[in-house]
């Protein structure tokens, strides 16, 4: 549900912006977000930016994926 995809903002003109997703460009509206600048990644849904992507958080999450969990099964901490 709520198909949306992160894309990089290339140009901004008031509430209108051009985003680029791997060579695909489209015009979107920035009416729902604040403080967006060229180079930012925004999540695009039905032609609107919903929110900016936080690069630091993205990196943190990815790092988390790569961690082999220390936790054992059955809710008990491993010895």
């Amino acid at each position, binding site marked *: *549900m*709520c*198909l*949306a*995809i*992160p894309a*990089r903002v290339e140009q901004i003109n008031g509430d209108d912006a051009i985003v680029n*997703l*791997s060579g695909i460009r489209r015009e979107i*509206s920035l*009416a*729902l*977000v*604040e403080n967006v600048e060229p180079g930012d*990644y925004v*999540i695009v*849904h*039905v*032609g*609107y930016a*919903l*929110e*900016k*992507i*936080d*690069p630091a*958080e*993205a990196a*943190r*999450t*990815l790092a*988390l*994926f*790569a*961690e*082999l*969990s220390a*936790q*054992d*099964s*059955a*809710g*008990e901490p491993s010895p």
Partner: protein
Amino acid sequence: MKYVDEFRDGALAKIIAANIARAADPRRQYHFMEFCGGHTHAISRYGVTDLLPDNVHMIHGPGCPVCVLPIGRIENAIQLAQTPDVILCTYGDMLRVPASHGMSLLKTKAAGADIRMVYSSLDALRIAGENPHKEVVFLAIGFETTTPPTAVAILQAQALGLANFSVFCNHVLTPSAISHILQSPEIRTLGRIRLDGFIGPAHVSTIIGSQPYEYFSEEFQKPVVIAGFEPLDVMQAILMLIQQINARRAEVENEFTRAVSRHGNRKAQQLVAQVFELRRTFEWRGLGWVPYSALQIKTTFADFDAEKRFKIAPLAIPDNKACECGAILRGVKHPRDCKIFGTACTPDNPIGSCMVSSEGACAAYYRYGRFTESRSTTTQQ
């Protein structure tokens, strides 16, 4: 595709799968509902279940705004589209949704109505500008994600003085639906259905934030993990849910921190509050009437409210008798329990809403479940 491909990485998937396998207690069963079709889609498209232990069960929730729109409202839209000089604009998703007697907006269009598929609410505005002698109605659907764009369109129409534009509003609210499911007797009282935790919406949450889920975790003592829609996000959320359950915690956790904050997008929330107000109650296909679960256009914007402009009368149209969507959406039944699954009801000719969207439980099972079962059958033989 940055922020996309990294979250689909097969090598990382193996690590998370290993973590899950290690975390999942083989002596118990885990039942999680992914509320959103977006998660359902990711699970199907990337074959996520293949990477999960057998005792982790995913239940598809009602999180597809198309699937939950009741037949009466679709019928309203069909009648609107058939009104002379009306152009009905809507998102592609709506076109195939079945109403009664095998009708749909697509069939209504084929029969001659002027129905236009739009990609954005702004396209509907543009069409209104280009067709001053027509009434352009935007059939608005969607959860909290899709509501702010509708609000923007109405505000722009007002600013432009577009007298021939209106919105048939069907925007619904996610938290109410989750409450409703959790409050259903099968789950709450009878305990007939196991529901150990929720994967919370990704993009809805960018707007509303993680805070609204805190009520559930407290009130119903179910863990909630908000997750992105990429397959690694889903797997990580499953891991986090297992960990909470193992630790007997019931908290709201946020896996999708790269886009979701606790308070959400306040600007979008303000725009919505400016244009919309709560409905006392709204019908959800499958769930029935759910209190305070939808929005309507404020009277200050009544000029843009198609319900008022066209005096749209509420229609109560029951679902097809054979259709089990209601029970399926609440997790009470399985598509294979429906007598007409795969025969009368197929993705090409859907009868119930769960067969329409590729995220619908029945469509997903039609596509992927039959395959999984046939695989196991073949293997067994």
